Each structure stands twice: as C-alpha cells, then as structure tokens.
C-alpha cells in the first residue's frame, strides 16, 4: 500500500510518500502508526504523540480504530489548518 505524509509529519519522516507492506497482525490505523514509529528515529519523531495525528484511508478521514485491510492509500497528517 502507498503511505502519504503531509505538513510536519512529512518533514519529520523526510519524504512525502512511500510504498510499504505491513506484516500480518497490523490491523488498524493505530497499529500501523505503532509499527511505523519503530522503523527509525524519524518515524518515532513523527508519531511521538499519536493522538494529534490524523489519518485518511483512500482519501476519507478515519479514526485510529479503522481497519486498514484492502486500503490502497493511507495518509498521515497533523490537524488541518485550511480556510
């Protein structure tokens, strides 16, 4: 699946997107954040406070307990500040 990062999540991780294949057992968005934060310092920094990170699956807002099965694109970003 494709992961996309925006704003300071993107800056901390150091790239706007990447392809990953999470291992079996990573069922939800929250699981995915925990797994990602163990991939290195930059990820640990990006996800150090998972409560403030928002996520979207296939371009729709979801909560941490959303299942990632079948997702093509998952995005992580800070709270939005448009308008």
């Amino acid at each position: 699946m494709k992961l996309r990062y925006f704003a300071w999540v993107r800056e901390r991780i150091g790239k706007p997107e990447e392809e990953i294949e999470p291992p079996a057992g990573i069922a939800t968005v929250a699981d995915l954040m925990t797994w990602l934060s163990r991939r290195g310092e930059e990820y640990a920094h990006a996800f150090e406070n998972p409560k403030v990170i928002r996520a979207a699956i296939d371009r729709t807002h979801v909560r941490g307990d959303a299942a990632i099965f079948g997702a093509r694109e998952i995005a992580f970003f800070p709270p939005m500040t448009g308008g």
Partner: protein
Amino acid sequence: MAATIRLQREPFDAASEAAKLRRGRGDIGAVVTFTGICRSDESGAPLAAMTLEHYPGMAEAEVARHVEAAERRWPLLGVTVIHRYGRLEPGEDIVLVVTAAAHRQDAFAAAEFLMDYLKTRAPFWKQVEYADRKTWVEAKSSDDALAERWTLPDGRDEAAE
C-alpha cells in the same frame, strides 16, 4: 444545483465569481461572499509569507462533500468554493466562499458552515514564514468548537458519511 469548486495556485476574482453565480437568475435574493486573507502578522510577529500545503484528490473530495451537505441542509441556489495553495504573501486572498439563496439566513448559514468545515476538515496545512524561521500553524480548538455548531441533533456529521 451546479456548484463551482476549485483548488488553485492562482489568485481568484471574488467579484466575478459572485457575478457568475447570479447571472440570469431571478430567484436569488441574497448573496454572501466570504474572503479569507493572509494577514501581515500572526500573534504580533510580522509575517513574510504563508505556504499552503494540501492533499490533492482528497481536498477536492472533502470540499465537494461539504458543499453537498450544505445543499442538503439549506435551499441554496448557488455555491462557489475556491481555495488556493502554494506560497502567498500578506494581503493575498486564501479562500473564497460564495453562497446564493432566496433568503439571507440560508446564504449566511451555508457560508459559515462551509468556512467552519474548511478550517477543520479540509486537508490543508498552513506554514507561516517569519523573517528568521518557519512554523506550522497549530489547529485552534476555537475552530473545532465552531465546526461543532453544525453537528446534527443525533450527533451525526452529515458530510462525514
């Protein structure tokens, strides 16, 4: 109802967008235009510029979903939403919402609803540049509180479905 939704780098012309909505229609009695502008300071510190990042594809879809929610909720006769992205200097326009209806309260409510949701749900992020540093704007809890005004009595967020 045909709505106009655009995300663009270029400036927009609020007056001509409002004129387009009205053209040739006799049923419109009220037009509300909201323009959001890049201020020259943020919390007292002079701003050099602001950069708006967005999530292409999702941003359009989110705005469209909220425009549809507004159309279900109020008898609107026209809606235009234009949101810019990229680097903007102080004094430049950021966002435009135009709503048209037979009666003023519908046009006002829909414009406020759309702005409150753009602030809190549309995937845009503002980074502000001062003379010596850049910083991401933090989401305001006051904006969340404003967006919650529109939650339906049963707790549903109409546009989130």
